[in-house]
């Protein structure tokens, strides 16, 4: 099959050579390339970027599946529809599918076109980005907005820098930030987090389902039961709360985290230090009276854990040095909670914290490497 797709037509000098990146991409998707080593080591490890990226997608699957169920659950609960498990799940699946389709079609089209222009092979990075974006936006986001956000982020955050591996910011998060600042009414507030435009369900704006983060922001915390509004701590832990599709369930995210850490694709140092940073600032905030919530509530609400596990750990945009990863992760977690507690404008700080730390990551690395080289120089003087 793949052989028929790769006649001389697409080879150098062929009429359709300009399409070779696309053809290569499909061809190598189906079969591992038959290239042999030409210089350097004669044998190579079986790992390649396709494998690395597919591992991240696999790690995202539990959060995505739970998210789909939760989309149905929230709608069913809000409108008193009394659906069964499968109905909830399929409702969520059908609501999410268009988002995935738009995200992948728009993103991959741009990715393929840019690779074509650069004359390079198509990079696998978008496999992950395209899966992440639908999981971090409200399920009801209009598809044209999503398409616009994806196009903006892939073009201006990734391709202009030279593609995957060269970007400074996490493209999925920039897509979210683009929506957040361009179309705030579709991205924030208490009415966007539960799906409601569907046959048979009245499209009533007055019905609102605020996220626990928003409820807590209003100060509705019951210290006796530990509940935030109508949601108990365990609701938030399991993920039966409104929010972006992928971010609600701590359990599903932790399964993903386990896969990422086990395979070594994402840095456990960043995950751990981010959580420590969030807990520490959450605790200080409680001491200072900025919040009534115990610090560990910061972990189960909003996008904190999803960001720590899947976004902050992006190997391209995070710090590269091992010491740098500790610092970077800590500051991501700390900043996110600082924004939550001390900023009146935004309830959720994770997106901004990660994007800010993406910007700062090269500086952190620069400092770590400088300290290291000057220590080496000192050692040499003393030797």
């Amino acid at each position, binding site marked *: 099959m793949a052989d028929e797709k790769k006649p001389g037509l697409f080879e150098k000098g062929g009429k359709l050579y300009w399409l070779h990146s696309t053809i290569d991409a499909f061809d190598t998707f189906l*079969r*591992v390339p038959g290239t042999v080593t030409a*210089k350097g080591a*004669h044998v190579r*490890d079986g*790992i*390649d*970027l396709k494998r690395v990226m597919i591992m991240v997608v696999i790690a995202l699957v539990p959060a995505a599946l739970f998210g789909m169920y939760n989309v149905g659950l929230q709608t069913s609960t809000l409108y008193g529809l009394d659906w069964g498990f499968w109905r909830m799940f399929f409702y969520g699946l059908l609501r999410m599918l268009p988002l995935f389709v738009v995200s992948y079609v728009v993103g991959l089209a741009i990715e393929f076109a840019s690779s074509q222009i650069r004359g390079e092979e198509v990079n696998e*990075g978008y496999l992950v980005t395209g899966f992440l974006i639908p999981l971090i936006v409200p399920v009801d986001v209009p598809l044209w907005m999503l398409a616009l956000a994806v196009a903006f982020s892939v073009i201006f955050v990734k391709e202009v820098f030279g593609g995957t591996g060269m970007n400074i910011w996490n493209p999925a998060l920039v897509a979210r930030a683009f929506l957040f600042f361009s179309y705030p009414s579709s991205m924030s507030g208490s009415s966007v987090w539960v799906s409601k435009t569907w046959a048979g369900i009245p499209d009533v704006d007055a019905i609102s389902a605020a996220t626990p983060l928003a409820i807590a922001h209003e100060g509705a915390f019951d210290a006796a039961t530990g509940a935030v509004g109508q949601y108990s701590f365990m609701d938030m832990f399991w993920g039966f709360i409104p929010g972006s599709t992928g971010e609600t369930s701590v359990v599903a995210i932790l399964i993903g985290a386990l896969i990422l850490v086990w395979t070594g694709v994402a840095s456990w140092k960043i995950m751990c230090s981010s959580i420590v940073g969030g807990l520490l600032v959450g605790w200080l905030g409680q001491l200072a009276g900025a919040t009534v919530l115990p610090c560990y509530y910061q972990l189960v609400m909003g996008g904190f854990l999803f960001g720590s596990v899947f976004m902050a750990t992006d*190997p391209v945009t995070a710090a590269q040095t091992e010491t740098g990863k500790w610092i970077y992760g800590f500051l991501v977690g700390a900043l996110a909670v600082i924004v939550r507690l001390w900023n009146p404008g935004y309830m959720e700080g994770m997106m901004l914290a990660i994007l800010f730390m993406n910007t700062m990551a090269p500086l952190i690395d620069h400092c770590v490497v400088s300290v290291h080289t000057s220590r080496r120089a000192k050692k040499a003087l003393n030797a």
Partner: protein
Amino acid sequence: MSNNLDLKKGLNIPLKGEAAREVIKTVSAGIVAVKPTDFNGLVPRLLVKEGDSVLAGSPVMADKMRPEILFTSPVSGTVAQIVRGEKRKLLAVLVKADGKQECVDFGAKAPTTAAETKDLLLKTGLWGSLIQRPYGILANPDITPKAIFISSFSTAPLAADTDFTLGDSLLDIQAGVNALGKIAPVHFSVRKESYSSTPFHKVENVVSHLVSGKHPAGNVGVQISHIAPIQKGETVWTVSPLLVAAIGHIVNSGKLDLTRKVAVTGPAAEKPAYVYALPGTPVKEIVDVKGDVRVIGGNVLTGENLGADGYLGFFDDQITLLREGHEREWFGWAKPFRPKVHSSSWCYFSWLTPGKQYDLDTNLHGGPRAFVETKCFEDVTPMDIFPIYLIKACLAGDIEKMEKFGIYEVLPEDLALCDYVDPSKNEIQAIIRKGIDLMIKEMA
């Protein structure tokens, strides 16, 4: 006195085809090649012409810049052919062996001064065995190095077991070490894991080091970077134990004898074992190459693709045979299990079978990409450097940063495992080589 060096980072590639500890044949080659390309930084000047008769130890070429550095024939016979490549570049001098193996007599005498040692090495053609760091080039006889480093073992994939190949040459090694010790202090490292079985801990007049760890713990460069990192302006020399024994043999007997036990290894080797052979022996006289097989002089990480018509190199005591991996596997990257492919990454399941040895081929297993995953470089580089920063400095050709990030301490071989583990399939050794070449050019 001995110092301990326990290295935690590194990787042993589980390759099938380790040589059995027996010598199965002695190859007496009809034609032997002397290749200037074996020596980094050598601009050769030819000293013989076709038809000249030579003895083992007679000079056949010299360094153009420093004509006192001679390169000699390992066999007696007649010069059969001068092989030249593009722009008349000298590729090899082929000597037809007469089978008598008559040797030039250099006189069995232990050198007593640095000058005597240098003189001996220069005229016998063994000067080429000294590798000068930084840059890994032919040593300059006019300088005195800070130290001379010898690693008595190799941890490279399927490398010849020096306990077996050189265990009976202890007297020669001692004599070689004594001679080199006249030039500079000799550091000698012994493998800790085989301390009880190896004869090398008996070597005297050296600063000895006990080294343990996975590959590249046996690389002399990695050891130097822990023992005494090379600073700007410093030079050290390194010698392989194989050639220390050859130096010692000349000291003890006055005759050049480069015969060595060569490990024939690799998954495509029919019967992995040792053979006696001289450097410059045609590959096809050592192994029977059948099918689409790559013949590598040395190990799979740093060796040279000799081709079926190539000749064993001056430094080689190993030949590795690998199948060419042109086959294309359906959905290889997506399969949960790929039993034939090894990966040090836990994205595959090689970790389930830690003792398994793999029949690896030369497939690249992916396409070239930008650097994404970079911690894997640090995991296989037991040196006090940031590999990715050094690599990027080399790519950028930034001399100042290359210096800062440790270019003086590395040779491509020390970062060879980065080639192996990189999911983005970058050619790290080639990048480092380019950086070193730039340093040589700019610093000259």
